[in-house]
């Protein structure tokens, strides 16, 4: 056997943003670019991902249009609402919208993610984002942009408020007690009384505790500031790494930093962004990338693991990185969603299943079930 008897289990997500990770994806045959904003197109992509029992789908977002230097594609939908739209007709798979904290109140973020968790039966996560972009600041008009460090610090405080609000209702707060006519036990509702640097929030939330207790927090690490935020708060960390050793080093440092912050490092899921062009042989994958490059006129510079080749080679890369502890899994970023997602699910996933490194059915109804993360104890109940 090429693989250990009990290989580490992989976690796989897929990024459903735009028409794919390559800026020219929308220009290729079958991209359905005219239907880019059609919810049924996205619903179909989720069905494909669900067929492959993938852990989660990620939906990118920003207050600004795509920068013209990176793509000709234009237009975005609010990611949290897209996730909600996809929830009722999907099962098992996690729905991970990006929501920025810089211009949105944490109270709103908290109840939006909690509601997606309720609507999906426990499949929401929150990819925390922030912005130091002057354009975004001009859209809102409340002053100049924050520095990156300032925006991340504010995001960290927002994470603290949001997660406290999720706990502000104990699970059994709703009692519906006929004898006393009390609907809730107010002793099990908690004011969060947050009075910090950026926010003062009283609480409790208006929305009862979400099914997962705490929907997972997803953080993309791209700087020292975001590294610290991830180590202290993330359940799922997305990293960029072009080679195995770089990923291994970053994953070990994250685990060490999490441990230093008093967390159990085994509770971190470090996923490497993997850009993929998958073909029946290396030459045809290469030819497809060449076509995309020609359309856009620039080389595809991803800044992370980039696989242009066969399904078998990609599966081996995933297993290899996982085996040495460079990754707990990957967020696959298909160059073209309409081509590469099907191949991922129909050709790569079966190889990972054959290697017994990936599930063939969902472990349970919630995203925490797929990630192997326990449902957290409520911080307020714990101290009561």
């Amino acid at each position: 056997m090429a693989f250990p008897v009990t290989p580490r289990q992989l976690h796989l997500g897929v990024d459903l943003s735009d028409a794919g990770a390559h800026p020219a994806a929308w220009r290729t045959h079958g991209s359905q670019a005219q239907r880019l904003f059609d919810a049924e197109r996205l619903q179909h992509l989720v069905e494909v991902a669900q067929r492959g029992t993938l852990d989660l789908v990620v939906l990118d977002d920003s207050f600004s249009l795509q920068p013209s230097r990176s793509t000709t594609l234009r237009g975005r939908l609010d990611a949290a609402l897209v996730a909600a739209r996809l929830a009722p007709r999907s099962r098992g798979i996690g729905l991970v919208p990006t929501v920025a904290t810089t211009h949105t109140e944490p109270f709103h973020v908290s109840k939006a993610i909690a509601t997606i968790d309720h609507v999906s039966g426990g499949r929401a996560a929150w990819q925390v984002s922030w912005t130091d972009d002057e354009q975004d600041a001009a859209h809102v008009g409340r002053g100049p942009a924050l520095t990156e460090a300032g925006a991340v610090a504010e995001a960290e405080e927002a994470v603290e408020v949001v997660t406290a609000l999720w706990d502000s209702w104990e699970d059994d707060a709703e009692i519906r007690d006929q004898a006393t006519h009390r609907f809730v036990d107010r002793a099990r509702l908690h004011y969060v009384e947050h009075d910090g640097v950026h926010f003062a929030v009283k609480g409790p939330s208006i929305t009862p505790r979400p099914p997962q207790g705490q929907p997972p927090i997803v953080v993309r690490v791209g700087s020292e500031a975001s590294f610290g935020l991830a180590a202290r708060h993330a359940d799922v960390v997305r990293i960029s790494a072009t080679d195995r050793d770089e990923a291994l080093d970053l994953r070990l440092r994250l685990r060490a930093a999490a441990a230093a912050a008093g967390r159990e490092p085994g509770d971190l899921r470090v996923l490497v962004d993997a850009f993929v062009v998958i073909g029946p042989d290396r030459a045809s994958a290469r030819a497809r990338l060449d076509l995309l490059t020609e359309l856009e006129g620039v080389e595809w510079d991803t800044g992370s693991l980039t696989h242009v080749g066969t399904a078998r080679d990609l599966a081996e890369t995933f297993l290899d990185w996982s085996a040495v502890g460079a990754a707990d899994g990957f967020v696959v970023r298909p160059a073209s969603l309409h081509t590469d997602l099907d191949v991922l699910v129909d050709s790569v996933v079966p190889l990972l299943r054959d290697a017994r490194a990936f599930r063939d059915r969902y472990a349970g109804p919630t995203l925490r079930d797929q990630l192997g993360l326990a449902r957290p104890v409520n911080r307020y109940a714990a101290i009561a």
Partner: protein
Amino acid sequence: MGARKQIHLGVHFPGVNNTTVWTDPRSGSQIDFTSFEHLARRAEEAKLDFFFLAEGLRLREHKGQIHDLDVVGRPDTLPVLAALAAVTDRLGLAGTINTTFNEPWELARQFATLDILSGGRAAWNLVTSSDAFTGENFRRGGFLPHDERYERAAELVAVARKLWDSWDDDAVIAHAGSGQFVRPGSVHEVRHEGKHFQVRGEFTTPRGPQGHPVLFQAGDSSDGRDFAAATADVVFSAHSTFEAGQAFFTDVKGRLAAHGRRPEELLILPATTVVLGDSAQDAAERSREIRLQQVPGPTAIAFLEQVWGRDLTDHDPEGALPRIEPDVENLDITRGRVRHVKDPRSIAAAWRELADANGWSIRQLVIEVTSRGGFVGTATQVADAIDRHVQEDASDGFILVPHLTPGGLDDVLDQVVPLLQERGSFRTDYAGTTLRDHLGLTRPAPRATRSTSDRALVG
């Protein structure tokens, strides 16, 4: 005889007040998505215009504690509506969103997104709040002076409309050959410099199928009515009785001309409850039983405490009204709801007199004075009454408020709606795909066909 005026009907998901009865064994979850889906699917089967969901941003408090006698807790409005778009095809999806704790950029893209995700079914009940109590949940706090509420709301709507109009309708061409995803010149930069908002940039989201979502407004003051006449498509009114409805209808429709609008450009839809029975007597009986469920003893006492400004828990709800006078210094005993007690001593005196004259207990009095009417009768009687209200201009239709989650309107949808259809007063199928189609509202013209005055203003 001319064609009958068409009735417009929406369903209101049960709220967090004592209209909603949770002690009934049939009462389901106010959080589980299946409850929302049940009401929305049933409304769509009956070809109703829209589903309506209210919002809350702070749990209500009474005597310094969270009010625990009514339903407490609700999900976030917009994600629920977006999820309902996945399980319905035609039903309008309306939600209340307070404008005070959000940026116009954020709200405009959320409603544009909902309109796109639902194929043109979004509606926004735009409310304003200035209270510091709610503001304690937000970094912006209760910063808004009360008299600037409508001024800020009007500016916010103006900004949102600029954003919705900043993409031309045919902006997305996705022309692979030329590499043009949007038609050149079809995404316009927005520049707004106002008292409340400074907004600049290219908007992220294409123009929705409706152009603009349908705008609801619920304010009842003179300022609120003027705001509605100037900006709204639908007024969510509280005047559901025939005479009050006609007076309100005449007043609000009369304000439209000053804004260059025609009467049919603003629909007036009061909220109402319906109780059906096999006979008028049976319906009245059921209505009384529901009122008793809605006002249990502790609720009656808590209601009196709002007027008295004192703890009255030592009073028997089945006994006489308090002889002690209200504490006029303590009128904020209940927070997080709209109720202004203006002159508690004279109210207390009037209620004592009423109770004495009729031999009412505290609970009976509260049931009587909080009764908001609604339709009570056989299906035929209720259909007659709804139709009369609309044909005789007391309203353009109703927003139906159930007392039970989620099946409280099943009987109305099953029994009353078919009668309205038989009369030719209500659609038997949807004629169009968007909420604007259902409501007979025109789609706002795209930017290209308008005057360029706003450009000149900012240029």
